[in-house]
């Protein structure tokens, strides 16, 4: 977000910069110490937030930066989950390696999905990605011998270097992966790829005149977002210890999209805020069926109409107001 950095630099005194850095530092320290202060369920929620934040970070590149709508990210998430699970359970591959391999495999699929999508826009793109999602979900469902089909797959706890990874271990792993993902995403947003994607979103013709191959970068955006979703999926599989194809459908893809949008399209902070929001709200509205759906749906509409910068944008404006 070098653009954001520029604006912040230009309009705020030096002091607020250190505030921002301090805030990130505090959050990180808190995150590291979390397992000491929360119970098992709280830890589960935190891990889940980290996992969804990863998905949102990746999807943000595709939808927030490159402006491409995708309704198949739940299936990238699912393929990542299944690939990791199958590699560890059935092929005895070490967990971390399986995580990475599963993600690379899904990235390849993401790149393949991107190719027909290159010439499609808006509703046509939405339907095509939806179609891909359905096909991938169906393949998982049908390939019973490999995936357990509709019955799902139950997973034993993973182990890293001989030690079993419990809830706390998985939390720290997720935190580590998420920090790495955050670092990578931040760097890309400040680099030529992030800028190229923003130009492509606005105008592919302008991108061409600047020497940017729109097609190549759209495929890259798909690939990056698929990679993030897949790693998240691999972590998710071992968080919930039971996966089945039903969970990775269009509904989840729409949820992923809402996370990114409500958090703030095109912002990295928004991805984390959106994910946290997505995990917290159903917890707060427990017991009132359909209430979470109502809240999310309403927020999607409200954000699009009144605050396109999302919750993150609102938070930043409030923060700027109190500092400046």
């Amino acid at each position: 977000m070098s653009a954001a950095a520029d604006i912040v630099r230009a309009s705020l005194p030096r002091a607020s910069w250190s505030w921002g850095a301090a805030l990130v530092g505090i959050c990180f320290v808190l995150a590291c110490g979390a397992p000491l202060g929360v119970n098992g369920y709280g830890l589960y929620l935190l891990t889940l937030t980290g996992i969804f934040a990863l998905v949102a970070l990746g999807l943000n590149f595709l939808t927030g930066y490159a402006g491409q709508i995708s309704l198949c990210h739940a299936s990238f998430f699912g393929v990542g989950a299944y690939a990791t699970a199958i590699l560890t359970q059935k092929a005895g591959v070490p967990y971390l390696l399986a995580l990475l391999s599963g993600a690379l495999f899904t990235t390849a699929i993401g790149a393949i999905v991107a190719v027909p999508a290159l010439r499609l826009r808006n509703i046509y793109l939405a339907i095509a990605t939806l179609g891909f999602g359905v096909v991938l979900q169906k393949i998982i469902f049908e390939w019973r011998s490999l995936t357990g089909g509709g019955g799902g797959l139950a997973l034993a706890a993973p182990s890293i270097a001989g030690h079993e990874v419990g809830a706390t271990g998985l939390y720290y792993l997720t935190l580590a992966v998420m920090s790495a993902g955050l670092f990578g995403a931040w760097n890309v947003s400040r680099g030529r790829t992030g800028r190229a994607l923003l130009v492509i979103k606005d105008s592919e013709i302008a991108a061409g005149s600047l020497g940017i191959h729109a097609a190549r970068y759209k495929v890259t955006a798909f690939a990056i977002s698929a990679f993030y979703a897949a790693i998240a999926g691999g972590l998710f599989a071992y968080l919930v210890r039971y996966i089945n194809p039903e969970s990775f459908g269009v509904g989840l893809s729409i949820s992923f999209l809402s996370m990114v949008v409500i958090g703030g399209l095109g912002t990295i902070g928004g991805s984390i805020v959106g994910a946290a929001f997505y995990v917290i709200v159903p917890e707060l509205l427990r017991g009132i069926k359909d209430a979470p759906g109502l809240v999310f749906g309403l927020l999607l509409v409200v954000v699009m109409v009144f605050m396109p910068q999302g919750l993150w944008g609102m938070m930043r404006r409030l923060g700027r107001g109190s500092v400046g």
Partner: protein
Amino acid sequence: MIANLVVGGLAAGCLYAMVGIAIVIVLNITDIANFAQGEMAMLATFFAYWLMDSLGLPWWQAVSIAIVFGLVEGIVIQQVVIRPLIGGPVLSAIIATLGLNVVLNSLAGMIWGHQTYTFPSPFAFSAPFVIGGVPIAVDSVVNIAVGLVIIIAMTLFLRFSWTGLGLRAASQNHTVARLMGVSITRTSAIAWGLGGLVGAVAGVLVAPSLFLDTNLMGALLIKAFAGGVLGGLNSLIGVFLGCLALGVTENLASAYVSPSFAEATTFIIIIAVLTVRPEGIFGRIRVRKA
């Protein structure tokens, strides 16, 4: 055997086409793909059910009122949600309608719960027509007939009435239409109202066969979009034929490929078509000038 499958597919395709027509009306005039179309129709259908069940109104009355409800629903949604988004990026409108989809679905769930209800149809007990040895349910014939009537009525309306002319002008070029005295928000409201109306018709026709619950329209909406995308979302006939083709393909795939893979197969075909023709089979690339 094939004839049976084809007829069954056409009947199913007609159901998709009903929703598809509502979508295309809104899309062509306001450039917004309404992902909430199905849920709007579902709400109107639940309203009709409530009228029949709680107030004891006869089918024709309940359905007529529900259709008006659909019209009002469309206009209200356009005024509240869509009007602020006119002229903005298309992605925002798509996401907003996705949000609306979830809102309406949750609302219906909160009011009517998640059980399945039986929605009556006046044609349920009529004997099926038999054409060439193939039985066709009266319901299906009615669906096809209503679909065609709506298409013809819409086409005539758009082509030959002043309001229709205004709608077409607005869909091509906002500025010029404004200069001609056409109010963009008014045409937008009319388009969404028509979409809601047609959606309500679709809902009450679909509900008897698919049973009424909050998930009634979910899958149908996707099929409607898919069929429309296949046939090209520019024209009513395109979406109609696309949806019929989708229905038939699904049925045939279900029988000859695999029942569970039928849906996936049709999406594969759609993706293949879009790869070669990004605007759909009958579609044309539309350039709208602000």
